[in-house]
């Protein structure tokens, strides 16, 4: 273990630096996200992730936000275990009939002010599962949605971009 820790000290961090020319978007995202977080919600944002019926593809990319390349926590954004601690519900879909009540209960357990982000094509409008009698629809068919991040699944960068848009809105007082 000593060797790996030492190597990590000597090697440059994997975390991608914001101001890279070909990665200008991520750079812009990073600093803007930081500003908005401070203005709207102090220095941190707590997210509760809810899988309301996804195929688990979205979950994998949401997980990836925590890897050393994206390192979501450097922006003061973190995932929490309980909706009671959350500012934001990050919901993947489609919302199945069997998960509808659990989603509603999670929503009501989240204190105000709260925001809901619908993740993925299925979270937006049930995607390829639209029309199934086991599916209610997109997240917006069950709880009010503030932001939609499409993609199948959305890339970690798209997720980061989406969280920025949300923060810009919350900073405006929306």
């Amino acid at each position, binding site marked *: 273990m000593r060797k790996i820790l030492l190597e990590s000290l000597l090697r440059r961090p994997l975390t991608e630096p914001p101001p890279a020319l070909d990665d200008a978007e991520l750079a812009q995202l990073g600093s803007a996200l930081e500003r908005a977080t401070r203005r709207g919600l102090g220095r941190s944002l707590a997210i509760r992730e809810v899988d309301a019926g996804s195929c*688990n593809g979205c979950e994998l990319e949401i997980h990836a936000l925590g890897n050393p*390349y994206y390192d979501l926590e450097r922006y003061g954004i973190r995932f929490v275990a309980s909706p009671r601690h959350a500012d934001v519900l990050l919901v993947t879909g489609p919302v*199945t009939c069997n*998960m509808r009540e659990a989603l509603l209960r999670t929503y009501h357990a989240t204190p105000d002010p709260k925001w809901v982000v619908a993740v993925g094509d299925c979270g937006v409008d049930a995607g390829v599962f639209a029309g199934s009698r086991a599916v209610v629809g997109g997240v917006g068919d069950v709880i009010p949605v503030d932001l939609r991040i499409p993609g199948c699944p959305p890339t970690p960068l798209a997720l980061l971009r989406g969280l920025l848009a949300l923060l810009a809105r919350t900073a405006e007082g929306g």
Partner: protein
Amino acid sequence: MSRLLALAAETPARGHRPWPRGEVDAAGWTAAGEALAAGSFELLGLWGERDAVHMALREPQADVIAVLTLACPHGEHPSIGRMHPPAIRLERAAQDLHGLRAVGLPDRRPWLDHGRWRRDSVGEAEEASSEAAAGYPFLPVEGESLHQIPVGPVHAGIIEPGHFRFTAQGETVVRLEQRLGYVHKGVEALMVGADAARMVALAGRISGDATVAHALAAARAVEAASAAEVPARGHWLRALMAEIERVANHLGDIGAICNDAAFALMQAHCSALREQALRAAHSAFGHRMMRDCVVVGGVAAEPASGGLDAVRALVALVRARFPALVELYDETASLQDRTVGTGVVGEALVRQFAAGGFVGRASGRGFDARRDSPYPPYDALGVEVPIRAEGDVDARVWIRIREVEASLALLDRLIDELPGGPSRVAVPARGGEGMALVESFRGDVLAWVRLGAGGRVERCHLRDPSWFQWPLLEAAIEGNIVADFPLCNKSFNCSYSGHDL
């Protein structure tokens, strides 16, 4: 002659490829159930439709696979689950989805149906459904100083929904009972009437982490039904994707298991390698998870220029970094203390359930569809299948480690020996029946399809490996402490969505 072939040959169905399918009567059906109970057959899948029930079986001794069908004009069939417990959940699902009654089924509770589906057809009782929604009778528990811990469906981490009902005595788990079905999306119902392309796209969304394997299984079933031959390059590119998917998932799992033992260092390093695998997949095939890249007839597109070099670079990177991580895992006593001897599943149980993937291999069952029911290009490449006997969390980690190494070697050869020519062929839209068995990172995926005359799907069934792994998790946790459940669960990493469909 094999007993299974003899059963399937009684009234053979025409045009079922590549394995035979035969209609049996109730006596033949029951005989197959007895052979399952005796351990001479393995259950690959059991699924229903409106007026029939099908069962895919393997006879390991004779190396034979076949499908048996029993017509159910009155919606009834003798239960296999009463003789062979691994069939119980499958029969409960067939009961929910197709109204088939398995006579003698020891557990008649609904499984996927939580009483909440939209009942579109007029006349179906709304009352019955709301009654089912009101309460699900968990198995009764009796005894001194027992307490119950209900968990889920919304869990604390970023994972899929399902309900776990623990009964514990002090810290020790006396029983775990799972309740699944929360993410049932009616995938198979959506496939009915669809064309083969949409069917494969839906299959690729059954379990996001195994999108390549599920799409491949579905596509191979369609190709078998249509008697189409995919060009060699198509097979090789598919295998290239499947091995990248395997490496990416195993890396993610190894890190996540260690993380559940509070060893975050491993998670950081493994998740960085996993990210590189996804980026290589994006460079080569245009999508980080290679979704919709496997299509009927081959692959959606040729690899992008420079894409194969990205995969080569990935192989070199993992080769350079992974050994130190393996050493770290092996030499960290505090980590081993959590994984060794935790969540043990015995070989008898794994054989009874015919559990595949790392769950089976960690407990002494070495089945791997790439080797034991080979399909191109693995029939030409040969596959090394690691096997352990311990059956604990540690063994399931080691199987993943060895499979990462084996997949790297396969990736080398898949790139170096990649044949030229077309990578896709047009598949005529015609009727037929086909089945496929494909090895996902998690174990063998079974796909079965019946196409109508115009190539439209009449019935399609996909059986995720999780069906035969979830029940073993209930056994693995028995006698362990509650705090070790996340560790056991992660070492199984069963798919909720793949199971719930």
